[in-house]
């Protein structure tokens, strides 16, 4: 595509498709505003860009000049960022069109997109179920065919988990591969912007555009943008480890069948598959639920009603302003995590929780290094323990909700790249398999993902 009329047509078609799936509540941008903006963007987009005319939806916690950035929260209702996130700016520079803001769990805290102040997003194939989360709006829009790709963000699996549940591809790059500038922080040491796509290729080409150095983010690595690998003929020479801790006794039988089939296909493609062990895996969720809330409690302190965002009743003095803004503005899951985070950082508890969690984090990262040092190139695991669950099923049981991230949090804790690829259906619902790569070796991980994607009958029952 290189013609403005084609870009305009693409913009209009994307808007039409987004209107058609309005019932999913995946896109938070009002449709009139979306149409107008898409047309304007298409007419000014850079024709020589590698993503010229490609509509890309953006999670509501990534700042864009177009549209509001509310993070799925009442506390930022109507908030308009005066600047573009680096990832959004890079998308636009490549000619892509920002196709609206997608619904998510408030500030990324959740695994079902039920914790949004703007209502839950429905699973595109079964409205009684959740699309996963927190990037559920992005996953649902891609799965419904409204956009070829969308930006999401991850702190503990928020791209890969909904990708698995919605049957799309989800990539979380290495920590430091994509700038976090303009990504509204949840757990800064874990957060990364990721991509959801119809295919490995769609997701990868968007990732390639948004990756690379950024002087505005001190934690972003000084590296060139990711180069896309070719689709390999075979996986000859690849050593793929299967960590036994990710296949517990009580793993859902159908999920196990789907994974076994994928592993068999990887072997048939020429990869050497061997069982490995990551002994500290059992502590990952606990570690995550100390570090992420701790950082969140500090990151979310800025939402105090003093400078931006709505003010609520009863703000007669500054203490009352804080109380009502944060009491009424945050939803229950955010309040829960801010309380937990405040607690674990308190003097007298810091050593018992936060410091210990940091030590465990180092051990979990070391587990991965040990395996990779012994010649393993990639790891294969299930992405999620189950397919999409029913709406409301885990809403009142936070721990059950937290456990849906059990296979994804480790990559965030260790800062490693990981991808979820659809590997089959379970009673009609999609399920994903996960490849975890070595730091900054996304290209190897993508090669294997390309091969797996091509080989696996993702639409068939496992």
């Amino acid at each position: 595509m290189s013609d403005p009329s084609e870009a305009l047509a693409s913009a209009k078609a994307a808007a039409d498709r987004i209107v058609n799936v309005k019932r999913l509540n995946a896109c938070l941008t009002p449709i009139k505003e979306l149409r107008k903006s898409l047309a304007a963007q298409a007419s000014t987009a850079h024709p020589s860009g590698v993503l010229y005319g490609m509509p890309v939806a953006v999670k509501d916690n990534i700042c864009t000049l177009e549209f509001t950035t509310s993070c799925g929260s009442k506390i930022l209702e109507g908030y308009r960022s005066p600047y573009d996130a680096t990832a959004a700016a890079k998308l636009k520079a490549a000619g892509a069109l920002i196709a609206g803001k997608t619904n998510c769990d408030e500030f990324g805290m959740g695994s079902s997109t039920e914790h949004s102040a703007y209502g839950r997003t429905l699973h595109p194939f079964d409205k009684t179920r959740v699309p996963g989360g927190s990037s559920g709006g992005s996953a649902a829009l891609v799965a419904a065919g409204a956009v070829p790709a969308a930006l999401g963000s991850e702190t503990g699996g928020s791209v890969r988990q909904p990708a698995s549940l919605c049957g799309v591809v989800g990539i979380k790059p290495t920590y430091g591969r994509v700038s976090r500038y303009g990504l509204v922080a949840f757990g800064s040491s874990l957060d990364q912007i990721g991509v959801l796509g119809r295919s490995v290729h769609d997701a990868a080409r968007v990732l390639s555009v948004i990756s690379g150095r950024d002087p505005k983010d001190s934690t972003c690595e000084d590296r060139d943008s990711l180069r896309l690998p070719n689709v390999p003929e075979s996986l000859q020479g690849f050593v793929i480890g299967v960590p036994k801790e990710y296949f517990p006794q009580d793993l859902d039988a159908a999920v196990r069948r789907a994974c076994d089939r994928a592993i068999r296909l990887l072997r048939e493609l020429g990869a050497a598959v061997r069982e490995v062990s990551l002994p500290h895996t059992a502590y990952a969720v606990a570690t995550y639920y100390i570090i992420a809330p701790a950082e969140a409690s500090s990151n979310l302190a800025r939402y105090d009603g003093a400078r931006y965002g709505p003010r609520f009743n009863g703000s007669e003095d500054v203490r009352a302003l804080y109380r009502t803004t944060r009491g009424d503005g945050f939803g229950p899951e955010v309040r829960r995590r801010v309380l937990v985070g405040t607690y674990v950082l308190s003097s007298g508890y810091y050593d018992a929780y936060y410091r210990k969690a940091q030590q465990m984090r180092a051990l979990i990262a070391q587990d991965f290094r040990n395996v990779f040092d012994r010649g393993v190139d990639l790891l294969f695991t299930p992405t999620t323990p189950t397919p999409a669950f029913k709406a409301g099923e885990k809403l009142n049981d936070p721990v059950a909700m937290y456990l849906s991230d059990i296979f994804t949090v480790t990559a965030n804790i260790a800062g490693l790249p990981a991808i979820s690829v659809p590997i089959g259906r379970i009673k009609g619902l999609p399920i994903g398999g996960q490849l975890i790569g070595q730091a900054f070796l996304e290209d190897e991980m993508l090669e294997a993902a390309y091969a797996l994607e091509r080989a696996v009958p993702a639409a068939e029952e496992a």
Partner: protein
Amino acid sequence: MAGAWETVIGLETHVQLRTVSKMFCGCSAAFGAPPNTNVCPVCLGLPGALPVPNEHALQLAVRAALGLGCTVHPRSVFARKNYFYPDLPKGYQISQFEQPLATAGSLSYLSPDRGIATATIQRLHVEEDAGKSLHDRFPKQTAIDLNRCGVPLIEIVTGPDFRSPHEARTYLLTLKQVLEYAAISDCDMEKGSLRVDANVSVRRVGETMLGTKTEVKNINSFAYVEKALTVERDRQIAVLEGGGTLAPQTMLYDSKTNGVRPQRSKEESHDYRYFPDPDLPPLVLTEQFIAEQQTLLPELPAKKRERFVEKYALSVTDAAVLTADRNVADYYEAVVHAGADAKTAANWVMTEVLADAKDHADGLRVAAGALANLIGLVRGGTLSHQAAKRVFAEVAERGGEPRNVAEALGLVQVADTGVLSGWVSDVLGAHTSEVMRYKQGETKLLQFFVGQVMKASRGKADPKLAQRVLEEKLAP
């Protein structure tokens, strides 16, 4: 009874680094801009914005640490200090906590009671400033100015080393001198670029355990340092002598009443929940970077003072006066290098030059070369000392070369024997009876004749030459 108490004071000084931009963003760090104009998403703490350390601020901080003899750590960690306050937009301040930039330094200063004393510098760390809450701008409302927010600071913490409010003040002035010398900070307390909090306690002389300490805040001018600490010291002694006990609390100094009052407990934050800032990787400084800062550090006041004593044969007191300000010290050396005698130059700088600088904001108005020339004119007999002072004032006011100015003012001493002989003859002719008395042995009249010659020449005659000519003419 008061003599039986010993005062123990430690200081925490916040110093604004002299950078163009703020600590973690590109906004101007200048003082005095209209409210909320030097701001951006980063220092406003807008959602999604991230900090990036200012390299120049780190250079200055390392120079300060080296200048204070600290160990600079090759790896230090930025930490978040969490508390809620309307002028703190992120809800936390980026500072350093467990792993500061530098530790274990010292600063020697001239104690009024103990001679040369040394304060230990326990730690020196980098942090960002908060904004400013203005409570008196609008009735019943607080206005917030975020221009200061994110301005780079270092915090310098001493041990409990000072034994009197006067000592604490002397240390502070010495610290200010060092930081000004190295161009690290303006150290202007009125503009908030230097702020000090003090930990104060008292104990019986001979006691080795420290007493209960209070923290004195809100000392916002050099003039109040000693007053505030004295007031608190006296308050503590009065409480203890009255049989009471002290609470470890924060006291706010009020310069209007010269009193202290305890900060309301609501104003105090109890738990800052420090943790390493995940937005900033550990600050790793290479050996080369640290060594480079060392070479960029100028000669500091104490060193310079010693050198002046040795090289220019000055007294310690004179050397201290000349080195108190780096510009003055440089000026003095320039005058000497331009050929002036070191001792004479020192006298000139300490009297005429400093007096002139004190009265005029535009600094050292007579160029070092010009002063050296002026001193040369006095030494060569062209100008009297009195005349030279007039020339100095004229050059300071209107510029020009001292010799030309002296000539234009008609102040050049006449050293021409011919011209002098005329004045001498006139004087001797007009005072024949004195001449008689001189010739009869009343030789002390010579000074009278010299005076008369000076008068006749309206001060232009070279007095030494006039005396010689007089002696010749009066010789039998």
